[in-house]
């Protein structure tokens, strides 16, 4: 499926598992996206403040600041940063966690193991929705 991402589209990956972060990074870079990686929510938030990030994927369970808290912190920011689309990725299939994260403002939720192709497609949909909503 062909997708034409606007240039530059910047994605922030917040993930404490380096192997996972790097494989997602590689897949997104193949899409032509500019990727930033942080290993916890605190570093992720710092990158978000510094860079014009268009999409965020974040793990749920992380040291220093978990994904749930990160979503809340991002949503407390003024727009446009506070409206950046967020995809949560977790190894936890707990329904209550999913509901909590979506209620906190995450746009989508995926549980590990993930298909990188599905991840890209979801990011694309999220980007399209955010773009069409202005």
């Amino acid at each position, binding site marked *: 499926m062909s997708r034409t991402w606007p240039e530059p589209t910047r994605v922030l990956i917040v993930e404490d*598992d380096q*192997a*996972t972060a*790097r*494989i997602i990074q*590689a*897949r997104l870079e*193949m899409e032509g996206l500019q990727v930033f990686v942080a290993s916890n929510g605190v570093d992720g938030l710092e990158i978000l403040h510094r860079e014009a990030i268009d999409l965020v994927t974040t793990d749920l369970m992380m040291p220093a600041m978990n994904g749930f808290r990160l979503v*809340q912190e991002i949503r407390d920011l003024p727009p446009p940063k506070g409206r950046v689309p967020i995809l949560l990725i977790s*190894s936890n299939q707990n329904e209550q966690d999913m509901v*909590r994260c979506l*209620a*906190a403002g995450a746009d989508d939720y995926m549980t*590990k*193991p*993930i*298909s*990188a*192709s*599905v991840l890209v497609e979801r990011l694309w949909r999220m980007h399209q929705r955010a773009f069409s909503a202005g």
Partner: protein
Amino acid sequence: MHLPPDLVLRALIWGTLILASLVTSLILLGAGIQFRRDRQNQYRIARFQAWEKDLATYLFSGEGASRPFPPIAHEDRRLFQTFLARYRATLAGQEAEALRDLYLRLGVHNSLPRRLQHRLATTRAQAALEVGAFRLTEQLERVVPLLNDPVPYVAHLAAQALARAGDLHFARPVLDWVLREERYQRERLLRVLEAFGPGLLPWLEENLEPPATDPESWILFALLTGSHRHRESEPRLLELLETRDMDIQAAALKGLAALADPLTYPTVEPYARHEAWPIRAQAAKALGLIGGPDAIPTLIELTSDPVYEVRRNAAQGLADLGHAGASALTWLAEDPTADRFARDIAMERLEWADERGHQ
């Protein structure tokens, strides 16, 4: 006995020298081991970095057999297994299949029969993990004996491998393994059984002895029904509620709560007044998920239960009901004439929600 002073002096000097050389040898040996480990780590990091790039190309460009991956040196095969294992819990779909192809290409699966019976637990564990991670169905029969492995970690990996295969032929040995574990461990081990998929539930219904004979298995059945949201098992859960076994009843209520079918509300509601507090606690939780506004009076009543767990679940149940339940909690918290237990638990629940920024 009196020794000449020069002999004592000599003995002391030699003793000191021997001790110093021993310490020096130990320091040198430690430094050598550290140096070797550092070299190994550097080598491992370098290989992993190179393979990460190769893996990305392999996974995300080209299709099927056309996917390129550089050959792995014989001496690197063990290291490469470790590398691949890092991705087994991360990748799904086509990429997981591609990983499996890559693993099979290594040829290390040929040594699995030997490694599954190896004297070292770590080797047996690694072999069981490979069978599960790469779905090597032809090895599953050889994994079954590991369920009785003296090392719990090995048995756990064996159970995971069998369950992940999804073949109900192995349901009985894995179920027996779960039942051999302590009861407090079983909810954690449900994750293993869940890997069989929802097909396990009809199998259990057909193959288990009646609840009076085999209550423990039916408790697992009820909990699994909840985790799979297997609506087809709801009639059996309602039957389990009528048993005289308190643990089965509590598990059935848990399952019904997860199914969240409002039609079961009239059946569940009377259990809020059960004499056993674990049943009341589970009923409180369930009512919050299946009851709707009709459940509010019962849940308010349970917030003044003498048992803390029941009060806590009742407050959670009210919060789960949404706006109407949250209003009831606020009313309880602010009403000075309300029961003290009820007021305290309502305040506790509201403060908890406030700290986390949600209901």
